[in-house]
């Protein structure tokens, strides 16, 4: 087993991420500044769709942005459709990423095929953007099984419900890859609330100590259900936690697709090149309630929500790309059509009645069911056969 180094980033921009000391800890002020985030979240395209220059991060090229923008449009449609399906009783619940689609899309698109994504329950759009079938993705929320897709097919782990635990699984996948000499980067996602869990701490520390290729990506959407960020942390920013593990932290405007692609992309490249883990905090907002079961008006004002409307990730990318004449009317319609297709597929899939097999209850608990489970399965079979008489 050897440590992979993989392809190296081309064209250093003088980004502190590139120069991170790789071995002995160093507590000089210079070393500190490598790890502390910039004083404001990185922004490359402002809410009006104008490019903002940043020394560290060049603007991704237009093609790349256009491809990503298409996914944004689809992502928004996925959120809308999922909400509708919950209202129609086809899904139990849906934690929407409305407003956070730029984070979702960037997380998926900055990874290569051999890389792994570790999403949470809210990251449905990221899961789909990475190629997982929409119906398989929504199986969990439709309620016929705890997960619907094969994690190995697209290298997407199951959507984690217990908060922060998945970050450690991500670290383990990265560690195994490193030991096997594989050139894998792992994107490990969590929310602002999840950063308070002990497992967040342990995951970042393990990744740093073992110098693993993990990009920790915190979507700070300002709320953990009803709890605002200020009751979660009084740190200068969540990205300031990075230095406590000896890794660089960075903040990024989470509604700016270009900035996200830049910062996450750099983190992925750096990790792949053997630079170790990074922590990226995206500053965004959960536009809707926690899930459909939640009522956000109980804990936040309408004004607060309204203030975020103009920062919408789609609007700004549309302005920017239209301004460059890269995004045409036709393309817009094409993307809308693509989104409509996904939505239609979601409707079809979720409106279809599914047959569940009660014996599945026992099939996957162990590779070889125990005598106890065989006995219990037989009892259930017997019970059901008598009922169906």
């Amino acid at each position, binding site marked *: 087993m050897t440590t992979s180094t993989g392809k190296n980033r081309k064209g250093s921009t003088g980004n502190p991420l590139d120069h991170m000391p790789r071995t002995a800890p160093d507590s000089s002020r210079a070393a500190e500044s490598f790890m502390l985030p910039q004083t404001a979240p990185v922004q490359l395209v402002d809410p009006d769709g104008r490019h903002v220059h940043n020394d560290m991060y060049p603007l991704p090229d237009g093609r790349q942005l256009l491809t990503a923008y298409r996914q944004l449009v689809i992502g928004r449609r996925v959120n809308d459709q999922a909400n509708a399906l919950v209202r129609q009783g086809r899904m139990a619940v849906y934690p929407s990423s409305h407003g956070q689609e730029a984070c979702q899309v960037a997380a998926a698109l900055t990874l290569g095929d051999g890389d792994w994504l570790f999403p949470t329950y809210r990251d449905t759009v990221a899961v789909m953007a990475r190629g997982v079938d929409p119906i398989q993705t929504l199986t969990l929320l439709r309620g016929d099984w705890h997960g619907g897709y094969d994690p190995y097919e697209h290298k997407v782990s199951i959507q984690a419900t217990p908060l922060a635990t998945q970050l450690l699984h991500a670290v383990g996948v990265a560690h195994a890859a490193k030991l096997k000499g594989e050139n894998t980067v792992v994107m490990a996602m969590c929310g602002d609330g999840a950063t308070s*869990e002990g*497992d967040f701490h342990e995951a970042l520390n393990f990744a740093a100590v073992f110098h693993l290729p993990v990009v920790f990506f915190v979507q700070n959407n300002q709320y953990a259900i009803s709890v605002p960020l200020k*009751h979660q942390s009084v740190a200068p920013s969540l990205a300031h936690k990075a230095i406590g593990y000896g890794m660089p932290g960075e903040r990024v405007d989470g509604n700016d697709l270009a900035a996200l692609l830049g910062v996450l992309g750099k983190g992925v490249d750096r990790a792949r090149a053997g630079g170790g883990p990074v922590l990226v905090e995206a500053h965004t907002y959960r536009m809707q309630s926690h899930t459909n079961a939640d009522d956000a008006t109980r*804990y936040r004002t309408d004004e607060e929500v309204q203030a975020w409307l103009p920062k919408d990730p789609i609007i700004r990318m549309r302005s920017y790309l239209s301004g460059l004449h890269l995004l045409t009317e036709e393309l817009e319609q094409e993307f809308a059509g693509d989104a409509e297709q996904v939505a239609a597929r979601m409707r079809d899939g979720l409106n279809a009645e599914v047959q569940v097999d009660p014996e599945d209850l026992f099939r996957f608990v162990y590779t070889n069911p125990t005598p106890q489970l065989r006995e*219990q399965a037989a009892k259930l079979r017997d019970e059901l056969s008598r009922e169906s008489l």
Partner: protein
Amino acid sequence: MTATTTSTTLTFAKALNTALADEMEADPTVVVFGEDVGPLGGVFRITDGLTKRFGEERCFDTPLAESGIMGMAVGMAMNGLRPVVEMQFDAFAYPAFEQVVSHVAKMPNRTRGKVKLPMVIRIPYAGGIGGVEHHCDSSESYYAHTPGLTVVAPATVQDAYTMLRESIRHPDPVVFLEPKKLYWSKDEVDLPALQARWGAGGAAAAGPRIGRAVVAREGSDATLITYGPSVPTALQAAEAAAAEGRSLEVIDVRSLVPFDDETVTASVRKTGRAVVIAEAPGFASVASEIVARVQERCFHSLAAPVLRVTGFDIPYPAPKLEQYYLPSVDRILDTVDELQWEEA
């Protein structure tokens, strides 16, 4: 004496909410905290209105960290307060497991009783609500197996109110299990009368529930022993059995630790047959314990082995499959049928 009854329809959830408010009113050292218990009032609204009424210092949200919540509660209880913490769902109490097992349960013993931990750990638990995984675990056996914890699970609106107040006044840490699917169950309750019992006399006047099982329905042919979410199912089964001419006694255990051997044993000695019903996976569970105790104590009265209707030994299933998992009236009646009646 003409008693004025002031019965109102109360939900299980509202009974808990009222109990919290009443205890906070009665005792300024009671503090409530956890995830989303403040302005939101908890995801099940059990703490609804408490922050508004008692202020942010008495009912507040914490950062999202269950071990943190539990560990902080230990320290607060050490220092003169009576914390009532909410774990948002059963499976989300697991991060606090070390704090519960190694500290909450052991602190009074370790300090030879110098440090008491009068705290309540409220856990919405068990299934039957179509929840996704990790939201439906029946975790009572982990706690009941841990010496030093008092573990209770009310099944009626009255017990929800009374047992929560009693738990808050209890000198030792109590794991208070709230069957989620009963939150919306209702009953006619004379609340002012219930409340009145908690005056100067305190818990004593109200009659203790901790450590006391209750005969929820009398019967003579066999005993159904159960608790928490399965109590209504057992009562329905007894009702159905009665229609078929079989008289089943139903015992609501209510207090898992301490366990009321007396009530359970008396019933089984009378009926000679017993079925233990619980939603948790059966293996090495509270249900196993009840079976073991009953056969130890009632062996010569038993006409048949003590049987169990429990969850299967599998992770709690997805919503569309939970109907096959949960103890059902039919499954209970089938099991009662297996109690070797032919030999009677």
